[in-house]
């Protein structure tokens, strides 16, 4: 299946939990905020949210800014 992760097309073998996707990428869930298809996913739902084919995922974190 194909998802769009931070604007880039990515192929996943199968449906995965959001939390697993973060872990695969060494991302600490406590430091990010996630939108799937423009809906914000609460942090405590990361473990139970399934990412599906065609989903557009935005994983954001704070950076230096003015």
């Amino acid at each position, binding site marked *: 299946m194909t998802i769009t992760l*931070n*604007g880039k097309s990515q192929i996943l073998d199968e449906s995965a939990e959001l939390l697993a996707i973060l872990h695969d*990428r*060494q*991302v*600490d869930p406590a*430091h*990010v*905020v996630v*939108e799937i298809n*423009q809906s*914000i996913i*609460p*942090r405590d739902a990361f473990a139970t949210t399934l990412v599906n084919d065609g989903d557009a995922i*935005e*994983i*954001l*974190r*704070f*950076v*230096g*800014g*003015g």
Partner: protein
Amino acid sequence: MNDELVIGGQVVRSRLITGSGKYQDESIIPQVLEAAGCDIITVALRRMDFDRPTENILRHVPKNKILLPNTSGARTAAEAVRLARLARATGCGDWIKIEVINDQKFLLPDNYETIKATEVLAAEGFVVLPYMCPDLGTARRLVDAGAAAIMPLGAPIGTNRGIRTRDLIEILIEEIALPIIVDAGIGRPSHATEAMEMGAAAVLLNTAIATADDPIAMARAFRLAVEAGRLAYLGGMPGASTFARASSPLTGFLDQTEA
């Protein structure tokens, strides 16, 4: 003297707000914040860079600071609202600096979209600090929209040009009941002192500290400059005149003949 600044119901001790952008070495940020003595620090929200997953600006920000995420990147009210909600979902508080920009050369804020975003977010309980191009009509609408403070620009972001919109900001300070925070353009401590002498409630700056040769020294310089300007504003500065007025007595001179 009890000279408290209250924004969104919260007492803020320091009238210097700094940004966290543009640092060559982010690890000095704690020392910069310490030297600046500031309570509020701005951050931006960007996509995770999966090549550097452990990078985290918040590591450098002491826990007791108020985080002020901005909506940089937003070109419309809708985008700003979306970014604000994401920022709040991080669990780092509900303060938000609205920054809606359509102009890439001068990075000037779009006052209209800014008002709309302020309206939506204030209604959702955010503490909204809108960055705006100084204009009395806009400021009044931002007040009505529920802003917690008004942040007019002194000059375009990152230009260090100083308070080039002085007359318009003075009018805001005189006419608007909310705190007026001069944001953008402040490039030297004397600019910050000037803003505070004018009666600004606070100043927000990033470039002038982050890109200085010695950001920690510059942070301290701005802290002192802001405090100096505030003290002067409260301490009743005498006015200027055209003709001279002697500082030493005009009587009792040597060799004068007296009656």
